């Protein structure tokens, strides 16, 4: 697809059902993917995210429903035209042990080359540019299997770029990555959507990261999909509802999940909003199962800003602590 045509594309699923009849994972939904958007598909485990991703990528057939690209039915496309429309990055691993980074990225040119797969100068330039875009052009000649997980994920994204498709679909692109790589990969995907006008769909478990990076959420909710901006889905309480579980609750103030604990003790502590010491003191107390009250209690904790010390008063007498480790050690040994 020519870059000038890539701006206003729409990829649609109409009346789509997936799963194994009569137990549909997702039943009779309509979805729209637009150019320049990063869409995150979220939902509890087993809700059909992977199946939906694979169906949209036409790796597996839909139970019913049709896919359209710019109002044209895409199932009529031959598989090689299809490969010019959608590139995928999957969780399945590269099997062969002696493929170089170049070999893997060059495979993205497969739908564009002749029956011999000969790479022309254009193809080589596109491969080089794709490697640069994801920041791994220094790894070109390394063996894929010698790379770190973060580097491997970049190689697969470069492969998807070399395929030059308007749509890129990624199945859990940040799984198995450390925090820095997770953030960098999401940044990269956001840039590709906003600057290169790609349609990017990812499935992910990283709710907090997705809230900060994705333009749209597709939230799988009991066989349907809620489509909206992440912020709207939080404000309408839908995100909290879908993900609420006994051990976990979503804190709309923090935009993150909190672990729900049974609070067995009470302590009087008045935290100041915005004070880092107070914030992390709360975290430490929560972990020990303390219910923080503003009412007087048999334990009272104070943080002295001038000396940066913690003062505990109440049923164990008066104690002073230099750090939170000492405080939690004391509380643990006295409360149990």
């Amino acid at each position, binding site marked *: 697809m020519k870059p000038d045509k890539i701006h206003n594309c729409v990829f649609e699923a109409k009346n789509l059902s997936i799963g194994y009849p009569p137990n549909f994972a997702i039943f009779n939904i309509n979805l729209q993917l637009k150019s320049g958007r990063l869409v995150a598909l979220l939902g509890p485990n087993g809700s059909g995210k992977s199946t939906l991703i694979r169906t949209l990528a036409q790796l597996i057939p839909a139970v019913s429903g049709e896919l359209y690209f710019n109002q044209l039915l895409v199932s009529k496309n*031959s*598989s090689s035209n299809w*490969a010019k429309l959608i590139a*995928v990055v999957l969780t399945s691993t590269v099997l*062969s042990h002696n*493929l170089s980074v170049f070999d893997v990225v060059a*495979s*993205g040119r497969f*739908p564009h080359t002749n029956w011999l797969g000969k790479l022309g100068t254009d193809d080589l330039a596109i491969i080089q540019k794709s490697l640069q875009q994801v920041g791994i052009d220094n790894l070109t000649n390394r063996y894929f299997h010698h790379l770190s997980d973060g580097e491997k994920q970049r190689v697969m994204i470069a492969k998807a770029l070399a395929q030059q498709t308007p749509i890129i679909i990624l199945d859990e692109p940040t799984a198995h990555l450390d925090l820095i790589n997770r953030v960098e990969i999401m940044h990269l995907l956001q840039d590709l959507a906003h600057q290169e006008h790609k349609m990017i769909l990812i499935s992910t478990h990283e709710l907090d990261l997705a809230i900060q990076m994705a333009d749209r959420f597709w939230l799988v909710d009991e066989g349907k999909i809620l489509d909206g901006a992440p912020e709207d889905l939080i404000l309408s309480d839908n995100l909290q509802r879908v993900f609420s579980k006994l051990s976990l609750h979503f804190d709309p103030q923090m935009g993150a999940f909190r672990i729900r604990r049974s609070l067995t003790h009470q302590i009087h502590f008045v935290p100041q909003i915005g004070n880092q010491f107070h914030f992390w003191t709360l975290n430490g107390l929560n972990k020990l199962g303390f219910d923080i009250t503003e009412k007087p209690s048999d334990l009272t904790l104070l943080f002295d800003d001038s000396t940066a010390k913690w003062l505990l008063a109440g049923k164990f007498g008066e104690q002073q602590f230099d750090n939170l480790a000492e405080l939690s050690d004391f509380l643990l040994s006295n409360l149990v």
Partner: protein
Amino acid sequence: MARNTSLVWKFAALSVILVGAIFANLMAGSTLIPFFDIFSTLFFDESSQVNYYIIWELRLPKTIAAILVGFALPLAGLLLQSLFRNPLAGPYVLGISSGASLGVAIFVLLGGSTLYASAWFFSGGISFFAILGAMLVLLAVLGISHKIHDSVSLLIVGTMFGSITGALVSVLQYFSSPELLQRFIIWTFGSLGGIHWHEIGMMTTLVLVSIILSFQLMKPLNVLLINEEYALSLGVSVRKIRFLVIIISSLLAGIVTAFAGPIVFIGIAVPHLARNVFRTNDHRILLPAVLLIGAILMLMCDLIAQLPGSDIVLPINSVTSLVGAPVIIWIIIQNKRIHEAR
């Protein structure tokens, strides 16, 4: 550029060696025929009756048969190794050649060879049954390979299929008449020598068709090395590829086994030699490389089998085992991660 240059040199060197091996096979045998006599017999028809007969009726068909076998089995081995993603796959180790043997046994021992309509009928029947037997075993192994992901286990399954077909052949032998049994035993020795011109014609046709068909597999097999889902997403019809590999390798293993008898280890060993010489997994290079190296290796095995200067001829099967089996041991030692079926 440097890579391309060394590629050209390697192919040129192999071609020269192939031509040398062809002439060596024509020259050597129970009597040595000088190089210039061969030349004049082949191209100018100015030779003694004896030399004419030896070259045109004995050594030339045998040499061409060796080349065809050297094309066919290694090509089948390469395709099977890529399809199963298993370095130990090959027409013999997966039991496909044994399936072909069973086909031949059914045809010969149940009396197909006595319905002597013509030499063509016999050759056609024996190759049809061999190809059918090869295809049935390959389909069974492929079915089981979906349940087993350990490559050594798959190998054992292939060996078991070999044992089953071997047992069936023994049962057939037990109930056969002595005349039919004799025909079959002679076939099992495996020989490139007894192949007639009309059989060479059939072999050439099928082997060339298979080579042409497999050319269109080069590009998709390269992507299949990544993994099946990615190949699918790039527009490769994995089912079509699997179907083609089954057809081609059954044709190749079947036709070779029908006429030359069971020939072992060449199919698995040559693709590894090719990968080692060219240091690549690119099927666009490996496919022609496998054909060249396979033909050279078979010609050399046949040359050894002739024991030049003597009247004795060793069974070709023993020679290919002596050459091929050490290659497999070497692969296992080199590839310590072989258990992961990659």
